[in-house]
């Protein structure tokens, strides 16, 4: 560590992210979820269990709130106090929002959760010491802690079942925090393949597990900095910008006909997941 590198380091790294910072290049993975298409069928959640070796904790531990679903479907009712919810329910798939300025990252004492160059909010299991501060500071509460040693003492995967485990994904032991990774194992594979061919990943070349199964195709996932990508186009169409906490939608009086929004944006975590508002017909 020489003082010169140090000073250079400072001059390079004195600006804040994502505002007044260079955008991620060549990748910034992001999502767009159309709540008008989402039917709340839970297929995404099950696919997540299958892809990411999530332990099934069982009834008792579920009752204690120790469930490990990285992707949960929330169901909301209208709050207008009518006898029946006659405009249906509202479903919301909630997973780690991969915030650009993630509240969880700054507070980890050992830096086990970091921001990756391709715009993910990474969780390094091996470095985690289980202080659980990240979860404490997560506004969305989408981080899940390994309260027990699911692989061994809890025997979540008895003989045969364990053969289903995805070798590309670590099986987490007790005492570490985990959360949705945007299926980083798939991203890394695609990225390195593309790199070896001297190109960047094409849109649609890589899918997250939830996106892949989503029956009505409500989930769009891709590279936000690639102007050709679906997700980029969707964000653009909704005039939602990554590094802003107030969007065109919020500014316009009486509502701009836009649907795109990000949850708890006012806290300025700059989430990477844009939701499209659910719509109900006014004619009926």
């Amino acid at each position, binding site marked *: 560590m020489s003082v010169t590198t*140090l000073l250079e*380091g400072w001059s390079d790294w004195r600006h804040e992210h994502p505002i007044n910072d260079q955008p991620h290049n060549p990748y910034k993975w992001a999502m767009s979820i159309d709540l008008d298409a989402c039917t709340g069928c839970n297929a995404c959640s099950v696919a997540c269990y299958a892809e990411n070796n999530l332990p099934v904790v069982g009834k008792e531990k579920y009752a204690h709130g120790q469930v490990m679903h990285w992707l949960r479907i929330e169901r909301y009712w209208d709050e207008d106090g009518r006898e029946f919810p006659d405009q249906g329910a509202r479903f919301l798939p909630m997973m780690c929002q991969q915030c650009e300025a993630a509240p969880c990252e700054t507070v980890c004492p050992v830096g086990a959760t970091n921001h990756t160059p391709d715009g993910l909010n990474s969780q390094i299991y091996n470095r985690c010491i289980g202080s659980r501060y990240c979860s404490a500071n997560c506004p969305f509460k989408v981080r899940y802690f390994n309260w027990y040693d699911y692989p061994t003492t809890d025997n979540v995967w008895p003989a045969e079942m364990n053969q289903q485990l995805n070798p590309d994904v670590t099986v987490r032991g007790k005492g570490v925090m985990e959360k949705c990774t945007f299926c980083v194992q798939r991203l890394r594979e695609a990225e390195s393949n593309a790199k070896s061919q001297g190109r960047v990943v094409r849109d649609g070349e890589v899918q997250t597990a939830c996106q892949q199964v989503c029956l009505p195709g409500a989930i769009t996932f891709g590279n936000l900095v690639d102007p050709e990508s679906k997700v980029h186009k969707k964000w653009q169409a909704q005039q939602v910008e990554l590094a802003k906490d107030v969007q065109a939608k919020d500014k316009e009086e009486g509502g701009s006909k836009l649907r795109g929004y990000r949850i708890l944006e006012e806290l300025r975590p700059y989430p990477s997941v844009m939701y499209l508002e659910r719509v109900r017909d006014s004619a009926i």
Partner: protein
Amino acid sequence: MSQRHLLALFDNFDEAAAAVKELRNTSIKGFDSNKDMIMKSPIEHPEIEEVLGDKPVYVQFFTLGGALSGGLLAFFLIAGAQAVFFAQSKGGKPIVPFPPDFVLTYEMFILGGVYITILGFLICAGLPAKRSPLYSAKVSEDQIGILVKSDEGAINTLKAIFTKHQALEIQEEAGK
């Protein structure tokens, strides 16, 4: 000429002070009141130590050095680690965020200060010390002891002064 030690014990602190004063004013051959006289007391009372003449204390310079180096060390260690070994973007904050670094700098500033002060104390006070040839448990109880060292010749003069000032007891190093 060989040297010998004397320890005089006083339970009257004013007399003790007076004795010291006299020892310092009368010039005795083979006895240098600045070098050869040590006062031992059960409590800390500056007013009597004054008569020993001003003896400077240097601990505070250790403190200064310790505090400054502690602070600097902290800041460069931390900022250096962040900027060089650990350049990871976290929570949209700069790689080298000053406010948190200052917090730690502040802590290390104090840490260094305290540690080095203690070190300074041990050095300046000459601790851990060899036990001196003459000592009485009374000194740690309620009496003041005056330990002097002088040539054979001066012994009696000193004794005379002590007795004059109502020394309770005068211990003498076994002669040879």
